[in-house]
């Protein structure tokens, strides 16, 4: 860590902030979506599932390109915001939400499928309203799914590069994250710093996955 500069530390802070906010947004948006996917009989289900899984197979530059267009002053999101969201932290959060969505949705969906509707009906029969039953019965039963979703969503956002480069542009303190910092260090031949950050990311990623696999053997984790 001694090799990290002030700029590197600010990149670490941006990365952590980005990953935290992205995971929070994804839990709020993802819980109802994952619940719907787990229990719907709608014909739309495979279409939505495929759309959610797209970031796993799509080159990050493709996703980044479309999000960049959407965020720009003439894109739909830019129109709503009345200004260009490209190259801003907010834009980066929006991009990360799409990019990390499958890593949050899939563990939640598996957990909800495993929990089934039976405990929910039991809770209703005991006078628990729908929200009450979800909070006191389903979410504890799906707790491991939530742990997977949080850890994977966080780690995957920490590790994103292509989308960040396209949408964020690596502005120090605003959109420059750890992964883009490594790239820039290498470009100017600062191998010691690139080494330090890379080693940190490698260790961090391994420990995160180790933690997931140790605490969670029940729900399959779909990592591409």
């Amino acid at each position, binding site marked *: 860590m001694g090799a990290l500069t002030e700029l590197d530390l600010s990149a670490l802070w941006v990365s952590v902030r980005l990953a935290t906010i992205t995971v929070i947004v994804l839990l709020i948006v993802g819980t109802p979506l994952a619940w719907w996917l787990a229990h719907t009989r709608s014909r739309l289900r495979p279409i939505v599932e495929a759309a959610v899984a797209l970031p796993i197979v799509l080159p990050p530059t493709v996703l980044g390109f479309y999000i960049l267009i959407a965020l720009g002053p003439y894109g739909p999101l830019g129109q709503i915001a009345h200004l260009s969201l490209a190259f801003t932290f907010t834009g980066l959060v929006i991009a990360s939400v799409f990019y990390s969505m499958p890593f949050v949705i899939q563990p939640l969906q598996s957990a909800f499928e495993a929990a089934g509707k039976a*405990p929910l009906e039991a809770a*209703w*029969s005991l*006078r*628990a309203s729908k929200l009450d039953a979800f909070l006191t019965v389903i979410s504890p*039963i799906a707790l491991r799914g939530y742990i997977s979703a949080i850890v994977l969503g966080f780690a995957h956002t920490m590790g994103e590069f292509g989308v960040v480069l396209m949408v964020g542009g690596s502005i120090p303190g605003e959109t420059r994250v750890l992964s883009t910092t490594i790239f820039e260090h290498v470009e100017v031949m600062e191998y010691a710093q690139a080494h330090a950050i890379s080693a940190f990311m490698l260790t961090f990623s391994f420990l995160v996955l180790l933690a997931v696999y140790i605490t969670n053997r029940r729900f399959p984790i779909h990592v591409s």
Partner: protein
Amino acid sequence: MSRLLACFDVRFPTFHLNVDLDVPLSGITAIFGPSGSGKTTLLRCLAGLEQAPNGFMRFGNDIWQDEKIGLSLPLYKRPIGYVFQEPRLFPHYNVRANLLYGYKRIPVDERRIVIEQVVDILDIGHLLERHIHKLSGGEQQRVAIGRALLTSPKLLLLDEPLASLDIQRKQELLPFILRLHQELAVPVIYVSHAITEILQLADRVALLKDGRLVGVGTLNELLTSVTYRGSFGSHRIGAVLDTQIVGHEPQYGLSQLEFSGRRLFVPLQSSAIGQAVRVHILANDVSLVIGKSNAPTSVLNVLEATVQEIREIDHSSVEVLLDIGAPLVAGITRKSLVTLGIKPGDRVFAHIKTVALNEEIID
């Protein structure tokens, strides 16, 4: 007496439920029928767990569902206790927390049933601090029943609560279910395809077949009726009598039961005088005698009866429907019928060779 009214006409992909149910809200009403006849679906409709586009349901004076005006109370707003086939206990809570889950969610002034009562009736006091996965199947189902009771329900729906248990556990749990409605006075709707459970528990039976109600009546009416008795299996033909223990004769190893002013002797019972006992008398255990009531016989249970109806069964046997203050069926040969020369309205004596007691009615 207040009644439960329910009309459902629901088409499922593989099956059509079409029932028009009207039963009094008292005692145990059994929904009986073969597997796949729609019993569980009907129960789920009563609970509001199935979409029933034309459904209507009235509980006493309260309308729970009237799709014409777009009304269907969700399950959590119906005062129903529901015990599913599987216990469905919450794995992240211990037994006590499971029991109190519903109790905590009802208003304090609606708590008629308290935890001590339920623990006592279901004998689960020693389990309270245990984790769910440390319980046997029977224990889990008892906790599930207790959990439902602690919402002080106005109606208890039981969906084959014994189905997943072995015969010994079944016999253990049956008395608990009987005590539920005797001690807590909660009307019960009990779904089962097991005739033994029906014989032991039901006050009244709704026969379901292919999604339709084919008959509703007291257990005895259906058991002794020509139309419906086939549904119960031919070896079950007979009558069920609800009696009370009125005396013990330990010197003879006998107890005396009473029903409609008549008395029956059965082997000595351990239950106290005044306790309710249900007995089952099979048609083949009843023979008929014409003559004086004081004619000596080794048969202990001789009851005066009126012949109500004679039914042809096959070329060698007939069935005689008798009135002994309750319906009773005697299975006799056609030759005996000719010898006795009895016809409807005649007075006869029914000699009852065996009185099967509640707990002896097993598969």
